[in-house]
């Protein structure tokens, strides 16, 4: 097995007012390629901080973050942005679609950073919208879609540039049970059929059951690590 993500003695602290708050206390972690990791833990345990570090949205106070053989903890802001565009697909709790754009235009946004032609971009967008089952809603704006549909558009946006890693921050946190199940089935299918590596932060034990590995964080340290047999 190849580790696609490696965290080595990662510490992260924030300055809140005059006080320094240490969120992660020297975490070591390896995530294998094609793994579906469910990251759980109470509020303030450092789940989102760890996700942000893996996704290159933030940088550790100390330690190493290696993703796909690249040490990203030393990259500049510009280089990190470029790296994210090529390697990371994001799925947020509140979808974070651009409200003024249609579903297809939202999905196209990450492709604007590539060298693909307009026709190629359109073709890819149609393909992923079909994959998430929303080809018929391509021209709809986010406010014309249900929460579940918006999250599907967000998933399409996350996978359209074929990233190395999908990171999901509470992807079902804003959805009803049925929509949540649909979204989790979709993520699981992406993991199983397309081999996408997924790191998902969740509070929901039902969502975590879809993951092939469950990791618990508590007070900035790994507390429990369990692999599930498919």
């Amino acid at each position, binding site marked *: 097995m190849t580790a696609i993500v490696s965290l080595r003695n990662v510490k992260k602290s924030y300055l809140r007012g005059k006080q320094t708050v240490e969120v992660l206390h020297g975490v070591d972690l390896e995530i294998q390629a094609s793994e579906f990791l469910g990251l759980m833990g109470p509020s303030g345990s450092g789940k989102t901080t760890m996700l942000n570090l893996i996704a290159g949205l933030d940088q550790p106070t100390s330690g190493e973050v290696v993703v796909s053989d690249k040490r990203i903890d030393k990259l500049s802001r510009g280089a990190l942005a470029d790296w994210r565009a090529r390697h990371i697909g*994001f799925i947020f709790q509140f979808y974070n679609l651009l409200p003024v754009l249609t579903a297809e235009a939202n999905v196209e946004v990450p492709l604007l950073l590539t060298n693909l032609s307009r026709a190629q971009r359109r073709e890819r967008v149609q393909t992923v919208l079909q994959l998430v089952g929303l080809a018929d809603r391509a021209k709809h704006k986010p406010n014309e879609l249900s929460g579940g549909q918006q999250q599907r558009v967000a998933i399409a946006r996350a996978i359209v540039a074929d990233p190395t890693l999908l990171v999901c921050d509470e992807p079902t946190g804003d959805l009803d049970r049925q929509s949540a199940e649909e979204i989790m089935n979709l993520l699981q299918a992406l993991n199983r059929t397309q081999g996408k590596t997924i790191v998902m932060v969740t509070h929901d034990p039902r969502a975590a059951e879809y993951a092939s590995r469950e990791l618990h964080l508590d007070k900035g340290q790994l507390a429990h690590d369990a692999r599930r047999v498919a």
Partner: protein
Amino acid sequence: MKYFSLVWAGLWRKRTRTVFTMLSIVVAFLLFGLLQGINQGFNTVTSNLDVDRLYVSAKTNMTDGLPIAHLNRIKSVPGVRAVSLWTYFGGFYQKAQDPLPAFATDAQQLFSVYKDIKIKPEYLEAMRKTRTGVLLSEQLAKQRGWKVGDHIPVGTSIWTKKDGSSTWDFDIVGTFDVSKYGAGFPAFYLNYDYFNEASAFGQGVVHYYIVGIDDPHQAMRISQQIDALFANSTYETQTQTESALAVMQLKQLGDINFIANAIVGAVLFTLLFLTANTMMQSVRERTAELAVLKTLGFADGKVLLLVLTEALLLCLFAGMVGLALSSLVFETPALRQIFGDDFSMPLVVIVMGAGMALLLALVSGLPPAWRARQLNIVDALAGR
């Protein structure tokens, strides 16, 4: 170009606000175009006036007049090519509220001094032969619906005739094309000799001598010589070039340049705050969206450019619409009458306007664009 849809969509995020901001910019640049255009218009009109013509009037005040006896003495100054004269008649047609820009003159000499006025020789000859003849500008004739051969009664509140009547009967004997000089140029001429003989008083009064000179470089010397001829006499003169006189007359209306620039400056200054506020508000509302763009891989510089391009698009588009509208206003008969048929919105005003719009966009767009550039993804996504 591939980011255009993103910029365009961002611009129309709050449709009503964008429309109102655009309207403000359109109106401001309409005003800018009009005022600067009028400024340029006056400059064009005065620059069309030549320095090879001098105007001689009474030193005390133009309305005091000079004696006709000055004519020959002015003619005798070396370098003087021709001398004509104007005496203000100030008539009206049918009612006092309908004035006519009428002057008594020596037409033969006048058209020799003003070489650029186009007139058929037969009209000049008819004017010479007809004591009650008048020559009109084509524009005035068209405006009034008058034609050669028409007989028109013209009233005056100044010059009563010897028979006690204040209505003068004239015969239109010709028209002339004065478009080069714009609408400010007198457009109605009667024979000075007839006026002088028929008037009950003020015989021999001349308000302006118009002096054509051979060499414009000699204007200063000739002016001084003319004024020296009449120095310390009862009728001292003041001689100046035509353009200097025009500028002086325009200044009597106020310093148009200053007024125009002050208004435009105030408007653009206010607009700057309005646009900057709109852009800042727009960026503040989109903090999370901009953070998402950065999350997806848009670099800081690219986000800065996206926001700045929005400001550019808003200001340049609305600014150009405003300038285009002001250009259309210059095509209207009202302004053509003032500045002449050839006058249209000067290119320099369009270029200045585009420059101002660009500056406005940069100054109002840079602070929010910089704010967007500096946005920290983690804080922005967490709503901090």
